[in-house]
């Protein structure tokens, strides 16, 4: 006796959270059944393996049918086929768009293209995440990217509106979209110690301060073609950053800056002498990063540069984080006292964000 057909349809669609997780994790029905058996569910409920198999199949089928709707979450809310309580709908969506830390670190900043998709096999092998799950996560990134890429207005709001994600998750997606769009390099070996959270934190600061949307709610010319308000960096701002070069190019200015910083920090830093000797190198590093941002290639290497030029030197001298904080604060503030320097606003826009990023990036 073999089962040809075996279905269960409830007026309210039954969602089993555990099975949903297994499905999202990309397990086949048989693997899922095996995992459920291992969880001890048979003993708890007195069910048989056959019952479990049938139940798992049912849920998988339901999820498969729901998947189409999950691709456009507002559809899930308005569709009539599955009657699902709102709290469950939210859970389905949230879980569907949740991604693995290990996976996102692999694709963060990469172009969300077919080429990358082909590499998913390797990512799957490397991370131990099933290929199916990798595909779902990748497709989610790409789908969100495609939808919000050309949209005006706040990136996070757009994502929330079109994908009905929680605030937390929408922010993460904003970071992913922002990174993918600007193609920041995150995969280099020296960046491996950074978590997705670190990058997401930086992304948020950069979106808030360095993009067109950051200049103000109303762009100077409302009719201009500034479509990608939150996704693209403010080109004008990047151009202007060249002006900061004077801080290191003008020897007097550099010396003055150094003496201002050293005066204030003397006795306050445990690594004062190291700071004093390294000041010019560090300052050059930070200012040169700014000056180079006109080139796309250098934008991509922003994090590599920051780690190379600032994080690594400090770390090799064993700066404690509190000293880094004091130094960066003083380093930014002191510029205001440089009489010959005219780009105070620009400096603050640059350094304010960079300071936040560097502090976040500065850890082991």
């Amino acid at each position, binding site marked *: 006796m073999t089962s040809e057909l075996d*279905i269960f*349809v409830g007026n309210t669609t039954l969602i089993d959270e555990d099975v949903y997780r297994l499905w999202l994790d990309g397990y086949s029905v048989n693997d899922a059944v095996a995992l459920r058996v291992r969880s001890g569910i048979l003993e708890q409920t007195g069910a048989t393996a056959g019952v479990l198999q049938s139940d798992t199949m049912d849920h998988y089928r339901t999820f498969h049918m729901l998947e189409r709707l999950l691709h456009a979450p507002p559809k899930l809310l308005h569709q009539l086929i599955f*009657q699902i309580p709102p709290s469950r709908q939210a859970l389905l969506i949230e879980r569907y768009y949740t991604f693995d830390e290990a996976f996102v670190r692999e694709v963060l900043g990469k172009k969300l293209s077919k080429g990358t998709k082909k590499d998913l096999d390797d990512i799957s092998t490397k991370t131990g995440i099933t290929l199916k799950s990798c595909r779902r996560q990748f497709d989610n990134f790409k789908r969100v990217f495609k939808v919000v890429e050309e949209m005006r207005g706040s990136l996070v709001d757009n994502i929330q509106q079109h994908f009905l994600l929680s605030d937390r998750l929408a922010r993460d997606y904003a970071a992913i979209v922002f990174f993918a769009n600007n193609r920041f390099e995150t995969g280099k070996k020296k960046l491996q110690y950074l978590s997705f959270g670190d990058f997401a934190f930086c992304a948020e600061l950069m979106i808030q301060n360095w993009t067109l949307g950051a200049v103000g709610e109303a762009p100077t010319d409302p009719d201009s073609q500034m479509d990608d308000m939150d996704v693209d960096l403010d080109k004008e701002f990047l151009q202007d950053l060249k002006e900061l070069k004077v801080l290191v190019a003008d020897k007097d200015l550099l010396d003055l800056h150094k003496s201002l910083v050293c005066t204030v920090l003397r006795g306050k830093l445990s690594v004062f002498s190291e700071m004093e000797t390294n000041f010019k190198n560090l300052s050059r590093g930070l200012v040169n990063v700014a000056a180079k941002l006109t080139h796309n290639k250098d934008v991509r290497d922003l994090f590599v540069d920051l780690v190379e030029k600032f994080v690594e030197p400090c770390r090799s001298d064993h700066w404690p984080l509190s000293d880094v904080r004091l130094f960066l604060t003083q380093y930014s503030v002191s510029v205001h006292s440089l009489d010959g320097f005219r780009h105070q606003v620009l400096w603050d826009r640059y350094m304010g964000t960079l300071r936040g990023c560097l502090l976040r990036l500065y850890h082991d």
Partner: protein
Amino acid sequence: MPGKLKVKIVAGRHLPVMDRASDLTDAFVEVKFGNTTFKTDVYLKSLNPQWNSEWFKFEVDDEDLQDEPLQITVLDHDTYSANDAIGKVYIDIDPLLYSEAATVISGWFPIYDTIHGIRGEINVVVKVDLFNDLNRFRQSSCGVKFFCTTSIPKCYRAVVIHGFVEELVVNEDPEYQWIDRIRTPRASNEARQRLISLMSGELQRKIGLKVLEMRGNAVVGYLQCFDLEGESGLVVRAIGTACTLDKLSSPAAFLPACNSPSKEMKESPLVHPPSHGCRSTHNSPIHTATGSRLTQNFSVSVPTLIYTGTGSGSAGKEGGPLKALLRQQTQSALEQREFPFLTLTAFPPGLLVHVGGVVSARSVKLLDRIHNPAFVGIMGNTRSYKLLDWNSFNSDEPETRDAWWAEIRQEIKSHAKALGCHAVVGYSESTSICEEVCILSASGTAAVLNPRFLQEGTVEGSLEQRIEENLPVGCGFCHIPYDELNMPFPAHLTYCYNCRKQKVPDVLFTTIDLPTDAVVVGKGCLIQARLCRLKKKAQAEANATAISNLLPFMEYEVHTQLMNKLKLKGMNALFGLRIQITVGENMLMGLASATGVYLAALPTPGGIQIAGKTPNDGSYEQHISHMQKKINDTIAKNKELYEINPPEVSEEIIGSPIPEPRQRSRLLRSQSESSDEVTELDLSHGKKDAFVLEIDDADAMEDVHSLLTDVPPPSGFYSCNTEIMPGINNWTSEIQMFTSVRVVRLSSLNLTNQALNKNFNGLCENLLKSLYFKLRSMTPCCLCHVNFTVSLPEDELIQVTVTAVAITFDKNQALQTTKAHAEKSLQRASADNEEMLQFPLELCSDSLPSHAFPAAKAVTVEKASPMGDGNFRNRSAPPCASSTVGVVKMTPLSFIPGAKITKYLGIINMFFIRETTSLREEGGVSGFLHAFIAEVFAMVRAHVAALGGNAVVSYIMKQCVFMENPSKNQAQCLINVSGDAVVFVRESDLEVMSAQQPAVNCQPSCTGEVTT
């Protein structure tokens, strides 16, 4: 020009992409009613078109309004080629035709295509302006209300229950062979859907006419079925119970004061002025009308129960003269070809006097190949199977389907008569068709009814009083209606264990719900008998003969299994019994489902004794005794599980007049079967006066084993196939209706009856286990109205479809209230005689809460019980799901726990066909059917929501015909569902509302709430 139908097409959403180039759609809509079609403008390049059309107006006869569905077709405009259909919506406008139901249909409807399923949604507004039509000879029956619910609907009161109505319509099936077809599958599916929609509209209208003739205004327990007879045609038939209903205007309908019988009696003449003033039905105009119909029409007509007031209220009091009288009356009824049948399964208090037992009849017919399409389905040779006496007659006379059914009903009636009953309640009819053989089945419960409800204008205080007096509380229906000295079958009678005055049988089988006032010990449980019988493949008459020969044995075995299982559970009565016999090419399947209970009025059931045939073999003896022990253990365990501990003390106190030792009880076949058969069949058992299972061969051994393999549901679960579970009162508001379908393929190699039985048993048991597992998060809960349907779509394929509803309950409080209730009723039972004589009216209003609203028992009982307040608060605590926008509840029950139905919006009766030629791509057969059933639910919900409702009650999936052809990558499925669209309000909300504005009628505020 009696009516104007107005339709407005507002907008569409989520339409499919029809133009690949632009990824968009140029959609427009055709609105068709009858032969008139309107079109909207084309809305270019959008998947969410906003048509905002004008009002399309159709001026039509109300006859057409009843018959025709409104047909809305969404198309994609194409300049160069034919327009592509996106899909259709059929809207039944019947609910708009009666004043109390919906006034407007407005909402989002899924656009359905028989090949692609649901493709987007369309927003439509429909209104009807009806002009008063004074034409007496009109063909329409607008205004007659239809209810699927098999009890008096919650916000109505039955003034008169007129009786049985039936009708059938026959037509050619537009697609009698789906595999080889000439037109496109879509076209033939749509033709079929439309035809069935038309036919059911027509059928409903005709039934409505009959109701009007009987002076009724409603049909309750309306059951409409399709017989897909294949090449010989398509039959749509319906049965129901004609009633005159009166809307209860008070929102506080639960308050006993409003419903006291005395008031009722005063009100009824006002509501229905008895203009003719007849008390005798023989003179009533209804009767003559019926008669005249008969002469003109082939359809068998409808009786008013002939049951005059001449019984002068002594119904049930004492046997002899009354019973003779009844028989006389039944006799006269017979002569007038009336069928005193009710499709109701629950009754207004006082209607049901006695229950005789189950009566059933089956008949095997040959569907004839029709050569002339004009006579499709009307002609046919017959092979008539009448239980044991199989009489075949080679008649060349054309016989209609009507005549077939008339014959069966006649038989049912005579069975009822043999049981001393003049009526049949809980009546239903069904068919099973395989190729050209058709088994017609009918079954019901023979009963004696109180005439008070069955005719107009019987208002007599004294009668009223006496009836109350003569109805012992909670046990009256168990008392035998037949003559003790002239019993229709050998039965074992004892004095009622409740009142000690009347005789009761030792076991009672019925097709109705447990009467609300019945005193039950412990809880009930679902009991199923399952059986397969192999049959040789044969053609035509040989096939019919083979089936006819098998049927009695099947019935016998099903019955034996039921009896054994009942005893094994330690129970003594079955309610809601439904025996389904399904015919396939090479086998017959029997599936009986019922809810077992322990009725306090009936004697304790005896155990089961096993006897071996070879007493000399020592080890064999040992084995037997081992089995015996196992059986006894099971009985003991079940008694504990279902809390069956009858108060045995009472026996000594009252002093039973017939204290018989009852370790063993006698098999009482005849309760559940027609008397004709019984007298003959019983011979096989006749010599034994105890219930003994003889193990003389492997088969019998297998039977005993199978008895013991039924596993009880896991803890926290109960199941029953009746409306509510006896012994559980405290329902919480969470409900989950579901449909589960399984198809298994039997390995064709040397199938034996035994292997088949085992497979079938396993299939059903596994299905139940799966349900318990799936619903485990709802525990403690009860699966109510568990409805199994078996079909044999092909050789070696068995399909089982289950629909049921899981309802959660509060375990702790359930226990308390049960106890309280039981105590209360016991007290009442012992004290009632005295009280009744002294304060008849007072008692009426006092005892009424427990059975004023049969299915809402939980509510009323709690209110009456001392813990009422506490329970009530607690029950309203769970979050109110109805507040969420757009939620539509579906349930096979006639009520919604924790809620009050405030309005019935009309009947939902929908028929869908879905077909695919890309089965694999849609996830195989399971994926295909899963999606289809989900779509059907969605369409039902959308229609209910558009009517302004928030639930479907008495929902039933009447047909789910699934056919597959995997090698061609094809499958097709037909589904027919029905139910009553209602508006309900949570009791917790109701409380708040009444607290705020106590004087306000809840009607407007309720509807307002729902539309939000």
